[in-house]
Every structure is written in C-alpha cells, then in structure tokens.
C-alpha cells in the first residue's frame, strides 16, 4: 500500500487516520528513503502535520541541549533503583553527534559483507539486461556519514552498482583499484559518482582509492569492498 501511496499525486489529501499512521511511522524513522521523500513533500504545506512534526523536533533539540552539559543529571535524579540516564548497555553509537563525520568515515566503514566471493560465470554475465543488480549507496546525512545503504544484497547479478557522495565542487574524480586501472568519474547533479564493480575474485579484498580535487587540493579516500558491514535491504 505504501508504494501505491508514494506514487500518488501530492495534492491528493489523505484521510486523517492515514495521515496519522504515516506521521507515526515517519517519526519512528520506519519509512524507507522513497517513502520519506514522499511524506516530507506531502507535509510541507500542511500546518496540522507540521505542528506535530515540530513538536518532535523540539523534543530532539531540547534533549540535545539539556544533555549537552550534563546538567540533566541534576534535573533527573533517579527515583528508583534503576541506573540513571547513560548510554545504553553495550551502546553502539550509530550517528553520534561528535567528530568523525567526514565522508572518509563512510568510505572506511566499508561495504557489505559476504557478497564478494570467487564466482563462476553465470548466465547473467552474458545477459543483455540485468534486473535488480546489487546497489550500495554511501551518503552523508546531517554531517554524519551514514551506514552504506545496500539494496538487492542477494542479487544474482555479477555486478554491483556503487554510488558515493562527493562534496559540491569536487572535480577530477577518479577511482582506482589496487593493481588495476584508473577510471574517471563525473559527479551527477545530485553530487554522486557511480561505478560498477564485478562481484568476483578480481575485486575481492582489493583496496580501492577514490580521489578528487576540491578547492585546488587533492583528496583521497581508500576502502575495500569486502570488509564492511551494512544493513541489507532486498
């Protein structure tokens, strides 16, 4: 149903209960990228929904400010035997509001596990059209490198489409694989460069280097295609 709605015109007003359901899922960060884009465009001129969205953002901002200088500890003395506010046990900070937000981090964070393996040629190797190739997207959100978004992780396609965000104004972008050739890449209007990588022994374990020039200064980022983790999404 979500797909049908996201393909519907934005100027069609949903029923109130459906708007609420969408908002709930949005605020719980349970929408995928396409659904999020559709819903944000939908709410942009709807004050009642915006009010509820702003309330949630206020809570986020207020929490960030209140916990910034640890004054929250004085304002929230525990009234039971449970421990006070602390990072969750075994906390694995996903996108902490701290340093390490560079694109390099997203690259070094790597790409999905286990998809690189020596493979024999499959019929897909010679197919004229390849449906749903595996796709890996590296992007930056709110200044923090987000985990790579992996789609069609189980694809039988012998290729993987890799998309990497580069800073605005980046030029002379290249990617070079260890002991391999160098490819020139042209950033798209959205600020991404793309390349196809074969899912076989030729790319397994090889260090790749993305290089570009920004404001007259050369930048490089190195990564491998087989040592990282990501959330696979079929």
């Amino acid at each position, binding site marked *: 149903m979500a797909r049908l709605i996201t393909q519907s*015109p*934005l*100027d*069609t*007003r949903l029923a109130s209960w459906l708007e609420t359901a969408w908002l709930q899922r949005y*605020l*719980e*960060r349970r929408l995928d990228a396409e659904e999020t884009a559709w819903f*944000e*465009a*939908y*709410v*942009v*001129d709807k*004050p009642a929904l*915006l009010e509820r*969205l*702003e*309330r949630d*953002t*206020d*809570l*986020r*901002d*207020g*929490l*960030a*400010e*209140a*916990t*910034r200088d640890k*004054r*929250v500890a004085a*304002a*929230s003395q525990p009234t*039971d035997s*449970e*421990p006070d*506010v*602390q*990072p*969750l046990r075994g906390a694995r900070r996903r996108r*902490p*509001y*701290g340093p390490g*937000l*560079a*694109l390099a981090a997203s690259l070094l964070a790597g790409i999905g596990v286990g998809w690189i393996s020596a493979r024999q040629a499959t019929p897909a190797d010679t197919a004229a059209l390849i449906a749903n190739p595996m796709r890996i997207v590296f992007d*930056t*959100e*709110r*200044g923090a490198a987000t985990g790579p978004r992996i789609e069609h992780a189980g694809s039988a396609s012998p290729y993987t489409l890799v998309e990497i*965000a*580069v*800073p*605005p104004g*980046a030029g002379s972008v290249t990617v070079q694989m260890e002991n391999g050739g160098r490819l020139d890449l042209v950033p798209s209007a959205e*600020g991404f460069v793309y390349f196809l990588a074969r899912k076989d022994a030729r790319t397994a374990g090889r260090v790749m280097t993305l290089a570009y020039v*920004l*404001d007259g200064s050369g930048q490089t980022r190195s990564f491998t295609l087989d040592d990282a983790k990501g959330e696979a999404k079929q």
Partner: protein
Amino acid sequence: MSAAHTDREASADASGNLADRIRSGDRAAEAEFVRQYERGVRALVRRHTRPREPMVDDFVQDVLYQVLQKLRAGDLHDAAALPAYLRATIVYTTTAEYRKRASHGEPVATELLDGIASAADPAEQLRSEQLASQVRTLLGELPVARDRALLIGFYIEERSKDEVCAELGIEPDHFRRVVFRARERLRDLLERAGSGAGA
C-alpha cells in the same frame, strides 16, 4: 466527483495559479509563496540538520530563494510538483553544506557548534536555553530511569525504535506511550513558558 478529487483539483489549481503569477512577475504572489511554504521548509530543514544547527535560517532562505528563482524563470513546469521540488532542494542544500564542511575538515561536532550558536543569535540562544530548561523539567518528571534512557537512546544516539526496545526490554507500545507523552508534556511546558514550538 469525490471530495478528495475536488480537493486535489483545488490544490493543483492554486499551485498552478501561484506559479503562473510568479512567472508573470507578480510580487504579491511571491510573498504568498513564502507565506505558504516557509513553515514547512523550516520544519523540514530542522529535520535534515543537526540539533542546534546555527544555520537553519540561512538554509530556509536559501531554499526559498532557489525555488523562487526557478518559478520566476518558469523552469518549474508542473506546479503540482512544487512540494516535491521544495523537499528535494532542502535535502540537496543541507547535504551539500555538510559534505562541504566534512571535506574541509570543518567542525560539525555539537560541542563546536555550541560556540557558534552562542555567538550567532541571542533570540535563538534564549529559545534554545528555554527549550533545554523545559526538557530538563520533563526529564525530571519521568519517574523511571529507563524512560529517560529511551528518549536519549532514540533521539540523541539515533538508535532505531527496535534497538531501543530490545536493549531496554520494553514493548513497542510502551515506547510509543513514553515518546507521545514526552512530546505532549514538552508542548504543554513550552506553552506555559510562552515560547512557541517549532519557532
């Protein structure tokens, strides 16, 4: 003809009319465009930027200006696509700025933004302090430390709802109750303090 269909036609007509008027140089239509979309643009800019981002106003102005330029030039042919175009411009503008900062090694950590925010806009600083004060009150009212950990985990550490629930051993319904009450209570506190939400 259904009510939804009528609404859709009316909305499309209004957007189309506004776009046509802006293209023809109608200054009042430009003001109307800003009035109609500024709040939504601001709300979405805040969603796409970090807490206490000092450049929210700049982003809002930049987005509205870019889209207005497109409308003036008549480059936006499908008026019904205006909301999606606005949203795309917001994402592009905020993401480009953060990519730029990251590539220049510029500070984006909250601790470093603190200094910028403090020096930037006294009114915004005051609002930020009021917001923090009300949230401290809110946190102080939560009797169970686990509920405070829930809010911190979800909003500050940006963990998923499922992760937070699993980690704290709570049910999704409890998660929703805590978050819902927190939002409602914060609104109540802000209204009592006289500071508008979402400003």
